[in-house]
Structures are given as C-alpha cells and as structure tokens.
C-alpha cells in the first residue's frame, strides 16, 4: 500500500509539472507565426522551435506513461493524465511581401525563450528525481533538459546580437538576412573574418566565389558582417583596393571604396605615365612603349569613369558600385541610392557593350530613370547601368565560343555575375514590403538576364523586361522563375536581332508566354538601339512597367491615316496583344 501511494504521488507531481510546462514554447511559436520575423532563415528557426516544442511534449508524456505504468504495476488504478492540447491556435498573418524583423516582437521572443529555459531546466531536474526515485528510466528528463539547454544556449547571444544589430540598424525593422546570419548563427565565414584584418587574398577569394554565384546567401553574409564591424575596421577596409566590388555592402560604402580606389589608381598611373613618357622621349626606346601603352589605356579608362561620375543636373548623384579597367572593363553606376529606392531598375546591355563605350549605356539608364521617375510620384527611383560581364564583341572573338555572340557561354558567365549583383541589391536594401526591382535585358544582355533569372528563381526581380532579344535561354517565360505576366517583351519592327530566336524560343512568339508591350512604329531608324529614344513609345512603356503602372501602356494608334501601311512588316505592334 505504501509503495502504491508513493508511486501515485510521484505521478501526480510529474503531472503537475507537465501541466505547468507543456506550453513553455507556445509563446515563442506564436510570436514567430505572427510575423515577428519573416524571411532570411525564419522558416529554419521555426522548424527547430517546433521540433523542440514537440520534443518537450513527448518527453512529458513519456515520463507520465512511465510513472503511471509504475503505479498500475503496484496495484493503483490508472491515474488520469493532465490535458496537454497539441494544436496551437494562432492568427494567420496578413499576406505580405515584408521580409524582416520587428525588434520589439523579437525582444519578446527572446524573453519567452529565456523564461522557458529557466523553467524547463528546473522541471527537468525534478522530473529526473521523480523517475529515479521510482526506478524508472530518466531519458524523458534528459530530453527535457536538452530543450532547456537549446533555449539557454540561444538566449544570451541572441540578446547580445539583437542589441548590436539594433545599434547598426536604428530603424523600425531589421533586414531579414541580417537576422538570419547575425542573430541565429555564428555567421562564422572564415573569409570574412580574415577580410576584417584587410587580408587581400581573402578578398580575392570572396570576389571569386561571388563571380561563381553558387551561394545565394553570400551577399547577405557580407552585409551582416559589415554592419557588425567596428567603425575603425570599416574605415580601414574602405581604403582596400577592390573592396567596393563586394556585393552586399551598402551602396554608399561601395561608392566610397570604389572612388577611393579610383583616385589612388589614377594618382599612381598619372605619376607612372608622366615618368615613362619623359623616359620614352629621352631614350627613344621602342621596348618601353608596350608597358607605357597598357598603363596609359588604364589611365584613360579611369578618367572616362571619372567623367561619367560627374553629376547630371536634375538627376540623383551617381553611385559607383563597381568598376574594373582590365580586359573589356566593367562598370556599374547607379543613378539614385538602390538601398533606399522604392523602385530599382538594372539595365543589362549586350553585344558590343564594354567600358570604353559606356556613355551610351549610362544615357539609357538616365533616360529610364527620368521616365520611371516621371510616372512614380513621390516614390524614389534608382537606375543602374550594369556592365558587369564580358559581353560579346564584333571582333576576332567571334570565332571563340567562350566569347562569341553566337554562343551562350558569355551569357552564362555574365548571368552568374548578374545573379550575385542582384543578391547584393537585395541584401543591402532597407526592409520594405513595397519596394520593386526590375531588370531590363537588351540584345544579348537579355540572354544574360535570362540565365541570371534561372539561377535565382523568384528573387532576381519583380518584373523582367526583354528588348531586342535573340532569346533568353529558356523555352517559356514560366521557366524564368518569375510569373509570366511579369515578363515583358518589346520588339521593334525591323530589329533583326529580335527576330533571331537563336537562344531558345523567340520571346516575341506567343508560345513563349510573356506579355508584349508596344514599342511604337516611330522606331524605324537603327531599330535595335532605339528603344530608349526620349519620350518614344518604347521608353514610355518601359517607364510604366518599371513604375508598376502597366495599365497605362501606350498602345499603337490606328493606322488608317498612316502611309507606312505599305510596309506592315515594320509594324508588328499592330497585332500585339498585351492582355495575356
């Protein structure tokens, strides 16, 4: 009788523990489901949390099973179990594209985890004692302790890192990616740790990884890492050559670092060229010409970039996001700050684009900025010229499959670089549920854009515009990872490149499944390059798409009074359907 009573008492004490603690992780789960944290690792954390909640309940149930069985074996009636409802009622958050963290809700989450940790730790000890006293296995108590340890291991660093992040991001919300890599992991990227000490080899390795685009989270790690660095380290890194090329750094930091590098290089090369010119004149030695010419070309390119960075009246200040003077050269300039812009449009050029011919591409980006800005009211716009890959040229490289316009090798390599660049834009943008990102691919650049879209399905852009495209590397718009009604195709009549369909289905065909936008039939001269003519139907319509105002697209006028009906093949807009 005495053993029977003791066994029942042990069960009752354990049942009281279960009643008090089975819901210890319900509050954190509710906070997660209420969008305290959306995106950037939240699903993985919620999965862990849910698993620990389930483990907690299983451990308590198993302990009660053991103690109840023990009591029954000693002659007691089966004791009643306390109710432990497993379902968790939460209000579904409203659908939203917001990805970030509300710091207040996150603080509440950490506090709830902290409380659960203390309570479960005590409960695990008491449960272990009850089970041991009744000669039962203590495994359930150990499982409870493991959950308590998971919580206790999480909360102190969480609280410390949240404080650190809030000092870095004083706004109302924290970027989702920052939370993912700084709050819930150690963010221990060895290359970044080495880079903090200005290790140039680590920087080169990071840039190489960036070019391969095999880690979509790299830019977010860079962004998080940057924001947790001491100010003195940041100031030091900005002077490191090529540092500004890292995707994920804030745009203004990239601009500052790249301009510093540009000025340093320019000063070095100016001194070199002056000195070598004097030497050449003095010695008349033809062997000195080669090195001189190479450095003089680099200097000319730096001066070209410097000229293009001059502010243009009425436009936002240009930000130098990337440059490289080697080979065909690279350049990425943004008109407007892409980190804070409500609308960001990235233009990807194609055949014959290169640093030396960047002026036209920059004009086009400014034209897009003007047009999108005109239609966007109070919303801010950033328009980026991205010459970030070796585009095919009309020279001897035509015979080289790795570089020729007849093959997609250059586009595949460029697509990886573009995907990484877009990762950077996302990582460094302030959290927003309404910001838009649009990529415009022209000519061979549309193939590059197509490859980038397939590398980053759903995240490259909200809308993709292809103009004068020879194909984008897929058979259907739906294969680009963007909803087909957000894939736009514009083709001028008489644009020979647009009719090629060399790389996959011609995007201009109905079977491709994209939406066509009229480009006007005033596009007759130099059709392949005339999509950006000021106030032309094509530019206006790109502006409307970029601004998210596709309902305003300009339609081709009736041709009843127009004599060029004699050549209807020059006016494919006539049969266009934008109502797909």
């Amino acid at each position: 009788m005495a053993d029977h009573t003791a066994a029942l008492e042990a069960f009752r004490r354990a049942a009281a523990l279960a009643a008090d603690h089975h819901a210890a992780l319900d509050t954190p789960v509710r906070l997660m489901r209420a969008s305290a944290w959306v995106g950037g690792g939240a699903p993985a954390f919620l999965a862990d949390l849910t698993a620990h909640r389930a483990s907690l309940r299983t451990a308590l149930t198993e302990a009660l099973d053991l103690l109840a069985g023990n009591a029954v074996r000693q002659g007691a009636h089966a004791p009643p179990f306390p109710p432990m409802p497993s379902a968790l009622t939460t209000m579904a958050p409203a659908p939203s594209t917001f990805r970030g963290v509300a710091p207040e809700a996150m603080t509440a989450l950490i506090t709830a985890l902290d409380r659960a940790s203390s309570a479960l730790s005590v409960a695990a000890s008491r449960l272990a004692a009850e089970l041991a006293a009744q000669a039962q296995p203590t495994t359930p108590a150990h499982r409870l302790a493991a959950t308590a340890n998971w919580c206790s291991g999480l909360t102190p660093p969480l609280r410390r890192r949240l404080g650190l992040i809030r000092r870095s991001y004083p706004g109302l919300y924290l970027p989702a990616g920052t939370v993912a890599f700084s709050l819930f992991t150690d963010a221990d990227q060895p290359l970044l740790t080495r880079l903090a000490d200005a290790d140039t080899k680590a920087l080169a390795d990071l840039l190489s990884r960036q070019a391969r685009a095999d880690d979509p989270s790299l830019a977010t790690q860079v962004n998080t890492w940057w924001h947790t660095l001491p100010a003195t380290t940041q100031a030091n890194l900005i002077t490191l050559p090529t540092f500004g090329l890292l995707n994920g750094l804030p745009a203004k930091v990239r601009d500052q670092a790249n301009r510093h590098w540009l000025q340093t290089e320019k000063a070095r090369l100016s001194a070199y060229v002056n000195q070598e010119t004097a030497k050449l004149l003095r010695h008349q030695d033809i062997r000195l010409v080669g090195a001189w010419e190479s450095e003089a070309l680099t200097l000319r390119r730096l001066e070209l970039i410097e000229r293009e960075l001059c502010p243009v009246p009425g436009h936002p200040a240009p930000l130098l996001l990337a440059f490289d003077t080697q080979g065909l050269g690279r350049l990425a300039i943004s008109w407007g700050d892409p980190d804070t812009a409500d609308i960001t449009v990235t233009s990807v050029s194609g055949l014959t684009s290169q640093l030396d011919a960047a002026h036209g591409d920059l004009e086009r980006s400014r034209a897009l900025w003007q047009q999108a800005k005109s239609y966007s009211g109070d919303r801010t716009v950033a328009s980026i010229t991205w010459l970030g890959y070796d585009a095919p040229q009309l020279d001897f490289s035509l015979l080289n499959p790795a570089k020729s316009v007849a093959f997609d090798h250059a586009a595949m390599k460029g697509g990886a670089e573009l995907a990484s660049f877009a990762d950077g834009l996302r990582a460094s943008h302030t959290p927003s549920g309404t910001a838009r990102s649009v990529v415009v691919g022209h000519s061979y650049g549309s193939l590059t854009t197509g490859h980038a879209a397939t590398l980053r399905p759903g995240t490259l852009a909200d809308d993709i515009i292809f103009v004068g495209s020879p194909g984008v590397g897929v058979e259907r718009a739906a294969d680009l990872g963007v909803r087909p009604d957000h894939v736009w195709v514009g083709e001028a009549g008489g644009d020979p490149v647009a009719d090629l369909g060399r790389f996959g289905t011609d995007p201009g065909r109905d079977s491709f499944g994209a939406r066509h936008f009229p480009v006007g039939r005033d596009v007759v001269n130099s059709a392949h390059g005339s999509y950006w003519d000021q106030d032309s139907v094509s530019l206006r319509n790109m502006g409307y798409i970029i601004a998210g105002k596709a309902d305003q697209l300009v339609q081709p006028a009736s041709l009843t009074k127009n004599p060029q009906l004699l050549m209807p093949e020059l006016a494919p807009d006539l049969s266009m359907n934008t109502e797909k």
Partner: protein
Amino acid sequence: MRYAIAAIAILLASGCSTENVAPTQRQATARVDQLIQGTAAAISPSPRLELIPYSVPPSTCLDESQSQDKVIINRKYWLRGIPKSQNMAVSRQIRTYWETQGHRITGTGRGDSPNLSGLSQPDHYILALAWADGDNLYLAATSPCATPA
C-alpha cells in the same frame, strides 16, 4: 516599277528622305519649344507650363548609325492648372491639334488613359502627352539627332 518600289522601301527602312537633314542644336531647341508652345496654346482651359528640369541638359544621340557627337534636345513640361477631370478632354484637344498640323499619331492610351504619342511632320520630332502618378499630365517634345551648337 519594281526598282521604284525597292527604292521607296529602302528609303523608308533607312529613314532617309530629303527632309531629314540633321538640324543644329539651336534649330532643334527652337523647334521643340515651338511644338510645345503651339500644342499648349491649343489647350483650353489654358495650362501653366512648369518645366521639368532634368529634361533640359542635351543628351547624347544614341542612334548607332550617327555620330556620337550629335545631341538630342528634349523638353518636358507639367501641365498645371487643369482640373484632373479635364485630362481626357485635353488629350482629345491635343490629338486634334497635332492632326490638323499634319503630325502623325503613333500611340494612344487605353480606355480612359489620356496618353498620346505623335511624330511631327515632316521633321520627325517625337511628341508626347503623358499621364503620371497623381493624375498629372506632362507634355514633351524630342528632337532627332542634332548637330551640337
């Protein structure tokens, strides 16, 4: 006859005509102003023209078949002082005016959108009446590639 048709086709495709001699920057600026002022004068009630500053700096001629030294002249003006409810009426007035001037209408808005695009004749300046956020309208004219002054 076949040769004549081919010649016309080539002329149309290349945009060449005896009227397409590149204007000077000064001529282009004057013509753009004339097109804007003429169009604005045809609108009732009379709008107040507010220059959009970023349209003023000449931009580079992007026509790859022409010299990169050439420039494009563009002017954009907000049409102020017109009740929003009159936007479609304004669009119809402008269309009528452009047509009476012999200009070609190249694009129109769908439904109740006042958007309008045109091409001046015989000199091929791009004309635009554009709808913008807030139901605002602007009027624009753009020159062909012009020789710098």
